[in-house]
């Protein structure tokens, strides 16, 4: 700790930080633009000028940039000094010369960092009356608007997009007064994290396009703390609602998980809740609409008859638990595919194993050697990919510390490190979007990857000297020599590392997950400390669902029970079974069952097969909890009221206590193994100020008494929310300190999202009274070591069978997630199902990218994408999504297929084509591209 004096008052500060960070951490107001806690300081905008003084005798002082000056012990600083204030006012005046006077029509207005800073700097009157620079804006795709005239050239956009997120298609162009931030030409921004530009930009150059198409000012949005349902990471979000529709999702700061950034699936995918594809009313077998009472009667009859239940990884803990209560634990079945169910059982055992630790996203950023096995994290858990991209900078941080350069000196640290990076090894079947920062990439068929991973384990353990015998001579993709080299470099990196990290996931298959755990176990023995092991499940509540299900109660068992007639009725919650099991098995089971009750908020193939379909609420319409990949339970609050006719699953199922979420959570913690600490996610009622609830609406919420005037002119009663600590009201305790129920930060003089610094104990650190969720599982046991079985790995082929290819499934950030694919903005980024082949394989079929191929023995036709990093014996298949375009049920395909060129014919009417596909290694014939 160091002591500094700011304007005569003394503060205890962290000397590792700079003056700007420390002024903000101490709650002082100091304007800035180019600095960002995740991106450090470059001293570009000159807005945070302060005076520093040599000693008490020094009356003149020196103007310095606070962001470039360490908060060293004994520093004497003045923010309020007349010269410093005048300097800051002059800087902002010159930054603003070409800024348009368009705040009333700008999406950023009311939450604009530039507005806040202009006011704070005292630049009230614009003297510049000359011609302003005007720019041509670009079409940046379905996610973002571009309005370059508003730019103040702080360079934050490219520092985030290029330096932090690894994007390559946005760059600073031209110079001085003409500086332009854009692409080479109009077109979709390629980075999976482009949406963050809307929050990173201090003004309205990059704004959320779906939001501005149906716009509401920040203060008119009804908000509540929520958790993203896009993948298993569980990023914290704040959805905003107005007039009954979801308008946008923004990042909600969580110091351990998402920090300041979301991925585009999370930010733009939630709009599915507004679509026409919602199930809005109860329906019977004939598709006739039922009233709520009729539906409840029918459901009661089914329950009286006795039914089995099928849960879901995309339904909340409460919904799954309510179903388990209703049908009994014996009759409660997994809603996961066979592969995922097995993977999750393994994942749960690893979460309880004391040999491992499960890293938070923040901890992943600090790893100094990473091995990713088989999982394409950019497409399955995108926020993890962004964290791994930061991890390669650990070496730069280490070098900087050695050279005594503060880590926040961004330009200096990059200059020092040059190309030096911490090791990141990617073992994957095809190319990934992290390849550009990887120190080692091994592309091979899944069986060869498994063999290579085993070789890493054996080599690390130091036991068998002939580990190279494990590596097959003939692997497609990488030669034995290349594989050996990759194994050697991975082992060297992991042994040298202080904080090694192993990443795998259910998409990579349970066998590879077992080897991942085995490697982590070997490392933890070597280093005598738990090794970080991140096993990523597929969906937002995969872990919570798996914790409630008995291991033997698989989906296949439930379907067999129905088709055998051992059970005649089934209740399925928020699950489209055609995504989980082969179509034939699902159809047979649902046809055999007398009663099929499906509770869901979307219309799916499964709700269409229901004898009773009941409409449930989407994630933003009720309070619920979910368990992420770490076993961390998080509470997501209700943002808006239920649409009429819909109810949460647990209310439909009507078990004891279900109407009150706290009592259902209490019951779950008492009855379900592993959930004992679940009630800790509930906010403490005693923290309320003077007994007041927390308002969902801002203190400036407008039109409350008029917003329903199109229906009736009398002023309706405010909706009452008895269950929650939050109220559908603008009245209540305005949060200034307590961050445990903080949806939308705001502080006097700070209207933008930058106001989060006012709620942080230290800038970029924890929130005061932060609710970070609760880790449900405790580590106590050594899980059994299970030897992986390479024979069951998909993609293994018999080289004797000519032309036969192993099937490996590809994930896409836009499309592989069931719900987000229905969002209108995401739909514009979807592509059709496709099969990717290596150039030699494609040549042997006489086909090129865009051609149609048929899977022999079936009528299934897929478009071809030739990808250079595909192993020769593998067909990488993206099955598409039923939300739009061509799709297939992945589980209907055999493990091995042969392909032939389809007779020339037009693609189907529902075809989306492949134009939206962004992959690093695609090749296509130039002649063909020119034709298009």
């Amino acid at each position, binding site marked *: 700790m160091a002591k500094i004096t700011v304007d005569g008052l003394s503060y205890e500060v962290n000397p590792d930080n700079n003056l700007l960070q420390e002024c903000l951490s101490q709650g002082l107001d100091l304007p800035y633009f180019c600095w960002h806690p995740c991106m450090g300081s470059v001293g570009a905008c000159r807005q945070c000028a302060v005076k520093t003084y040599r000693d008490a005798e020094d009356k003149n002082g020196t103007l310095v940039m606070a962001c470039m000056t360490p908060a060293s012990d004994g520093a004497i600083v003045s923010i309020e000094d007349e010269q410093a204030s005048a300097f800051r006012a002059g800087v902002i005046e010159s930054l603003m010369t070409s800024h348009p006077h368009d705040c009333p029509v700008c999406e950023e207005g009311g939450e604009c960092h530039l507005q806040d800073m202009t006011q704070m700097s005292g630049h009230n009157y614009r003297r510049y009356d000359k011609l302003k620079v005007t720019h041509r804006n670009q079409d940046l795709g379905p996610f973002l608007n571009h309005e370059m005239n508003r730019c103040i050239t702080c360079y934050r956009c490219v520092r985030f997009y290029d330096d932090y997120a690894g994007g*390559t298609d946005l760059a600073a162009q031209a110079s001085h007064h003409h500086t332009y931030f854009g692409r080479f030409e109009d077109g979709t921004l390629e980075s999976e994290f482009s949406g963050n530009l809307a929050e990173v930009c201090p003004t309205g150059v990059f704004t959320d396009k779906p939001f501005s198409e149906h716009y509401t000012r920040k203060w008119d949005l009804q908000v509540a703390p929520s958790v993203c349902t896009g993948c298993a990471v569980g990023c914290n979000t704040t959805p905003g609602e107005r007039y009954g529709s979801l308008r946008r999702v923004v990042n909600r700061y969580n110091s351990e998980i998402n920090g300041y950034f979301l991925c585009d699936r999370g930010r733009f995918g939630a709009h599915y809740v507004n679509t026409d594809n919602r199930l809005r009313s109860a329906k019977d077998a004939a598709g006739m609409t039922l009233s709520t009472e009729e539906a409840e009667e029918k459901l009661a009859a089914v329950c009286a008859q006795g039914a089995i239940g099928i849960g879901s990884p995309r339904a909340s803990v409460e919904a799954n638990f309510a179903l388990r209560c209703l049908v009994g634990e014996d009759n409660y079945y997994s809603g996961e595919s066979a592969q995922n169910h097995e993977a999750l059982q393994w994942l749960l055992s690893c979460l309880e194993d004391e040999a491992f630790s499960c890293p938070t996203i923040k901890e992943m950023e600090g790893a100094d050697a990473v091995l990713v096995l088989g999982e394409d994290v950019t497409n399955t858990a995108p926020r993890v990919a962004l964290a791994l991209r930061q991890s390669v900078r650990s070496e730069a941080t280490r070098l900087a510390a050695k050279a005594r350069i503060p880590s926040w000196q961004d330009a200096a640290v990059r200059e020092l490190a040059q190309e030096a990076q911490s090791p990141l090894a990617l073992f994957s079947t095809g190319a990934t979007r992290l390849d550009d920062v990887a120190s080692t990439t091994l592309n091979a068929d899944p069986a060869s990857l498994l063999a290579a991973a085993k070789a890493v384990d054996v080599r690390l353990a130091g036991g068998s000297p002939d580990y190279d015998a494990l590596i097959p001579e003939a692997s497609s993709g990488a030669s034995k020599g290349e594989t050996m080299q990759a194994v050697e470099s991975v082992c060297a990196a992991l042994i040298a590392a202080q904080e090694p990290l192993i990443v795998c996931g259910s998409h990579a298959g349970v066998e590879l997950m077992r080897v991942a755990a085995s490697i982590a176990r070997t490392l933890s023995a070597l280093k005598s400390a738990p090794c970080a092991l991140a096993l990523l499940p597929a969906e937002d509540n995969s872990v919570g669902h798996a914790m409630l299900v008995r291991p033997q109660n698989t989906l296949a068992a439930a379907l067999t029970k129905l088709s055998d007639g051992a059970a005649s009725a089934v209740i399925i919650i928020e699950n489209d079974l055609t995504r989980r099991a082969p179509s034939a098995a699902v159809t047979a089971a649902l046809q055999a069952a007398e009663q099929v009750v499906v509770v869901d908020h979307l219309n799916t193939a499964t709700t269409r097969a229901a004898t009773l379909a009941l409409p449930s609420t989407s994630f933003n319409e009720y309070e619920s909890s979910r368990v992420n990949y770490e076993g961390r339970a998080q509470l997501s609050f209700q943002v808006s009221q239920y649409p009429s006719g819909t109810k949460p699953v647990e209310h439909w199922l009507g078990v004891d206590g279900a109407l009150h979420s706290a009592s259902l959570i209490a019951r779950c913690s008492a009855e379900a193994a592993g959930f004992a600490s679940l009630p800790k996610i509930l906010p403490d009622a005693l923290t309320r100020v003077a007994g007041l609830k927390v308002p969902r609406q801002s203190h400036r919420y407008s039109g409350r008494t008029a917003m329903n005037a199109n229906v009736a002119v009398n002023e309706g009663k405010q909706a009452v929310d008895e269950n929650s600590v939050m109220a559908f009201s603008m009245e209540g305790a305005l949060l200034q300190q307590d961050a445990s129920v903080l949806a939308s930060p705001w502080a006097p003089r700070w209207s933008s999202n930058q106001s989060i610094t006012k709620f942080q104990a230290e800038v970029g650190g924890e929130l005061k009274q932060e609710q970070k969720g609760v880790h449900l599982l405790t580590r106590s046991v050594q899980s059994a070591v299970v030897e992986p079985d390479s024979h069951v790995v998909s993609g293994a082929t018999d080289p004797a069978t000519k032309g036969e290819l192993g099937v490996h499934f590809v994930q896409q950030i836009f499309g592989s997630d069931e719900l987000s694919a229905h969002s209108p903005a995401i739909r514009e980024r979807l592509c059709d199902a496709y099969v990717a082949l290596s150039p030699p394989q494609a040549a042997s079929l006489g086909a090129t990218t865009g051609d149609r191929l048929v899977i022999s023995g079936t009528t299934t036709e897929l478009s071809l994408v030739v990808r250079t990093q595909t192993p020769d014996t593998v067909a990488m298949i993206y099955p598409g999504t039923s939300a739009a375009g061509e799709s297939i049920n992945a589980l209907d395909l055999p493990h091995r297929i042969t392909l032939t060129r389809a007779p020339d014919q037009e693609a189907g009417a529902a075809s989306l084509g492949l134009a939206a596909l962004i992959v690093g290694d695609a090749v296509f014939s*130039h002649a063909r591209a020119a034709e298009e």
Partner: protein
Amino acid sequence: MQHKLISSSSSRVLSAAELEEIDHELTLYPTKQSVGLEALKIVQRHQGWVSDESMHAIANYLELPLAELEGVATFFNLIYRRPVGKRVILFCDSVSCWIMGCEKNKARLAERLGIGYGETSADGEFTLIPVPCLGDCDKAPVMMVGDTMHRQVDPASIDALVEGPGNKAFTVDKVGGDE
């Protein structure tokens, strides 16, 4: 690196002469990406300007992101991203030349060629671009036409320039290449 599956604008093939010069530069720098600016200069020397197609070709050849290469190309005023005339007139209108009456010369250029700053004459011969200084203030007003420096320019020498090269009415000094 090519990321998008289908790109909306296409590439051209770099000529053997261009490639030879670029390959020579590659031997002088530690990484391929460092050669971006030199490659732009080489292509401009051969083509007169740098078209979108040339940008694609250079980016592909040097494995540089297009947006980054565009950042370099647009940062430097003398890399032309739009077609220019056969000869580019770099016209100094900074203080010394202004004192010595460059305005009259500019007016004469407009009168004879019908072009202002940033414009190309109808016959495609001349493009007029202002520059802040050419470092020859003692012989102001000055301008550069192609690689040739013109000193103590007056409206008569503008006429001579327009009517044809080789006229002895104005001073001509050949200056070296662009280094």
